[in-house]
């Protein structure tokens, strides 16, 4: 049983690390702050979630360590979107121009009054 848990734990921790690494590569490769925030979002959702999952298998059964790991995951789940949002909002407020096309012509997009 320990063996299985160890293998699962290794699998999840390595997969999580891979996603953190890909996120870091993304932060370097992508052109500007808004697109980079997507790569950073990958790190703080899937990367951390997988690493936490891997650590949970190392907690050794149902105990306080497991509960704490679940709590860390739970709070990250709520705080990470707030921090990403604050980051891009601050960039906008500072006058950074997003490298993005106007998508108001996309199907279903909200159009402001006066716009066609």
């Amino acid at each position, binding site marked *: 049983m320990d063996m299985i848990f160890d293998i699962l734990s290794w699998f999840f921790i390595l997969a999580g690390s891979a*996603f953190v690494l*890909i*996120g870091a*590569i*993304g932060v370097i*490769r*992508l*052109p500007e702050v*808004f*697109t980079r*925030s*997507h*790569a950073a*979002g*990958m790190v703080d*959702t*899937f990367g951390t*979630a997988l690493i936490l999952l891997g650590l949970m298998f190392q907690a050794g059964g149902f105990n*306080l360590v497991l*509960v*704490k790991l679940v*709590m860390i995951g739970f709070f990250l*789940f*709520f705080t*990470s*979107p*707030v921090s*990403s*949002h604050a980051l*891009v*909002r601050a960039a*906008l407020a500072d006058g950074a121009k*997003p*490298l*993005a*096309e*106007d*998508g*108001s012509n*996309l*199907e*279903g*997009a*909200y*159009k*402001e009054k006066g716009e066609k």
Partner: protein
Amino acid sequence: MASSISLWVFLYVFWFLLSGHTEPLLLGFGAISCAVVVFIAYRMDVIDHEGHPSHLSFRIIPYWVWLCIEIVKSNIDVAKVILSPKLNISPVMFKTKANQSRELGQVIYANSITLTPGTVTLGLEDGILEIHALTIEGAKGVLSGEMDRRVCKVKGKMEGHNE
């Protein structure tokens, strides 16, 4: 008063799980610190339905499971985009309407959009979300409105008296 007590109970359980102490003296200290925190929160007038959302029902749990699956899917999509040699991104900005009737539902929706990589909510004003998407596919995914509908379902059940 009822919400103050339930906040205290919540804080005390949280304190106990984090500390793991069972000595009576330390349990007492924990109880006192939680009471002080509740008192400060009461003085700050932040014990309202938003700061202490006890009305959030368990119906949100199936939504979270669905959201986690979406997060995994979009993570794989973004990872593919990042690792592809050509880096074929097509960033796009657009606005969309959040159909939830109240702020809490709109915030759940906006947060869910930000949580899924590839889409970030830039702003939320009067129920209009401003979204930046890494690829046009991600933008279309948001505009299909499935997430919006699911949040509405959860929130509709939670705010039965409203609409």
